[in-house]
């Protein structure tokens, strides 16, 4: 605003601001010297670690740059992504189903869901992968018919029905479903009892209430741990190397067994895992924002809004209020 257009009031206010109000606290800010010292030490540590890695004679840097975008590595990356996405999607559906069964008052469903979670959470994932991968050793034929008679509808060779990829996907999905079920269940338990009553009082059926009222609210609680699970899943796909599924880690070990550059290829693979886990936090952020609607008085800003606010040096509103404090 040009100086000349200042109103009388504006001038008075500007003048007042210059005087120090005796009630204002004028204090020397608390200093934090240890933060600075720690930060400097860490910085020195990281820089020297970086330099030592870079200058290490035993690491062949051209190998890293050669293989990071190698077509075989890229196909491994694609398969890893595919496995993660499919296993997470299917296991989430199964998890919701198991959680609902667990919370239902049908004792059969209840016990079944409990048994499932008990078995799949109680045994190592690695063993489950091997189990599905070598199911052919246990049952060479899978057939469907009437139990205790010779009548069969169809019969199929197990290794044809369940190739390594399917076995791996099956193992990851079934195992994840047990964990997801518990996460979904805790989310559903976090929804207020009054929500069920309100839904029932307007004539909603239990199933409709579940999908329209309970799950959308439970999502707010479910998504952060599910983001965690997705990242675990992404890394756990590497366990499928034991049944020779050609995902990222398997491909890398195959390459390194030929060129004997194990460390370089592990670095290549680690870079990819780090990149993929970082990318995964973006959809999680937007999902949290979506399911948080109505909960906060104003939605938290997106990363882009944050960035532009920093650039414009304006304060951003991250203040959250729960609806509970209204009454």
């Amino acid at each position, binding site marked *: 605003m040009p100086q000349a257009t200042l109103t009388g009031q504006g001038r008075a206010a500007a003048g007042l601001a210059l005087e120090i109000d005796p009630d204002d606290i004028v204090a020397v800010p608390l200093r934090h010297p240890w933060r600075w010292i720690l930060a400097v030490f860490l910085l020195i540590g990281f820089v020297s670690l970086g330099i030592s890695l870079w200058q290490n004679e035993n690491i062949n840097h051209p190998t890293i740059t050669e293989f990071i975008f190698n077509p075989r590595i890229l196909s491994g990356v694609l398969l890893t992504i595919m496995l993660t996405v499919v296993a997470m999607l299917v296991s989430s559906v199964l998890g919701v189903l198991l959680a609902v069964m667990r919370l239902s008052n049908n004792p059969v469903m209840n016990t079944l869901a409990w048994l499932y979670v008990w078995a799949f959470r109680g045994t190592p994932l690695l063993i489950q992968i091997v189990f599905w991968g070598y199911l052919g050793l246990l049952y060479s034929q899978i057939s469907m018919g009437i139990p205790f008679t010779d009548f069969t509808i169809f019969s199929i060779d197990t290794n044809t029905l369940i190739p390594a990829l399917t076995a791996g996907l099956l193992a990851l999905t079934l195992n994840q479903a047990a964990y997801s079920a518990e996460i979904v269940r805790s989310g559903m338990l976090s929804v207020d009892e009054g*929500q069920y009553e*309100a839904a029932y009082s307007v*004539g*909603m059926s239990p199933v409709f209430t579940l999908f329209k009222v309970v799950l959308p609210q439970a999502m707010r609680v479910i998504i952060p741990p599910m983001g965690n699970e997705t990242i675990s899943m992404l890394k756990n796909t590497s366990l499928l190397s034991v049944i020779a599924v050609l995902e990222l880690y398997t491909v890398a070990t195959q390459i390194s067994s030929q060129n004997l550059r194990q460390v370089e290829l592990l670095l290549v693979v680690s870079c990819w895992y780090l990149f993929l886990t970082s990318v995964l936090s973006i959809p999680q952020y937007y999902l949290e924002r979506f*399911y948080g*609607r*109505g*909960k906060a008085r104003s939605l938290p800003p997106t990363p882009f809004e944050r960035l532009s606010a920093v650039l414009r040096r304006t304060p951003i509103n991250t203040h959250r209020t*729960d*609806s509970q404090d209204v009454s």
Partner: protein
Amino acid sequence: MTGATPGTSNATSRATTATPATGLDVRGVTVEPLLNAVKVRKSYGGTPVLKGISLAVNPGQVTCLLGPSGSGKSTFLRCINHLERIDGGRISVGGELVGYAQRKDRIFEMNPREVARQRRGIGMVFQRFNLFPHMTALENITAAPIGVRRISKQKAKDRGLELLDRVGLASLAQSYPAQLSGGQQQRVAIARALAMDPQLLLFDEPTSALDPELVGDVLDVMRTLAADGMTMVVVTHEIGFARGAADVVVFMDGGVVVESGPPAAVLDDPQSPRTRAFLDSVM
């Protein structure tokens, strides 16, 4: 007024509305009560909470339930739309048994879908509003008409806006519950109940979670509904509302109806010492 009423510690019902099975409306025509509760019993883990409550509400009537804390008012209200199951007695709304089906002389438990269908005709407004926090005010109102009654989205929306207008909140249709004051939330909750076109509306202390200055708006909406002929059962501590809007006031204590009758009689000339003690404490 005479002192104690000997031998009537349980029920001092007035002759006028002694929980009739059938009543007389103003023209002297016999009408079936819309809500008929007969000797309703309910206990929680061996502790009896309702010990034989009988209440009949005629169409268009407003009945206020008063009583000290823990007397079973909320429990009784929740039994009317089968949020709680009753241990004994009968509750029927619109001539239909609530939660049970009677075939010949046997009683069958209803399945959840049938209960849900019954509840469409019985609206309820809660003390803590219980709006769906992930839906806007308008979505709160239209969710059940669209999802349960399968009304077209446009129709439900028009009706929802009309109802919001009726409770004085037309401009806040797109607000989320967390962005509304308590009084506004409660009025949205009333609109949500009305959207299902219920024949009976239940209110459980609709104003007791509200700041005093917000109570009036909600009570005004309820008075308008009463004047429009809505049949309502209202649990409340607002004696002024009961006096002005109720046709019948029922005083409950310890799981029984102690006294019931027109507001002037029960509120100004209570027969039971328990009623008198309660009224003295709230007025």
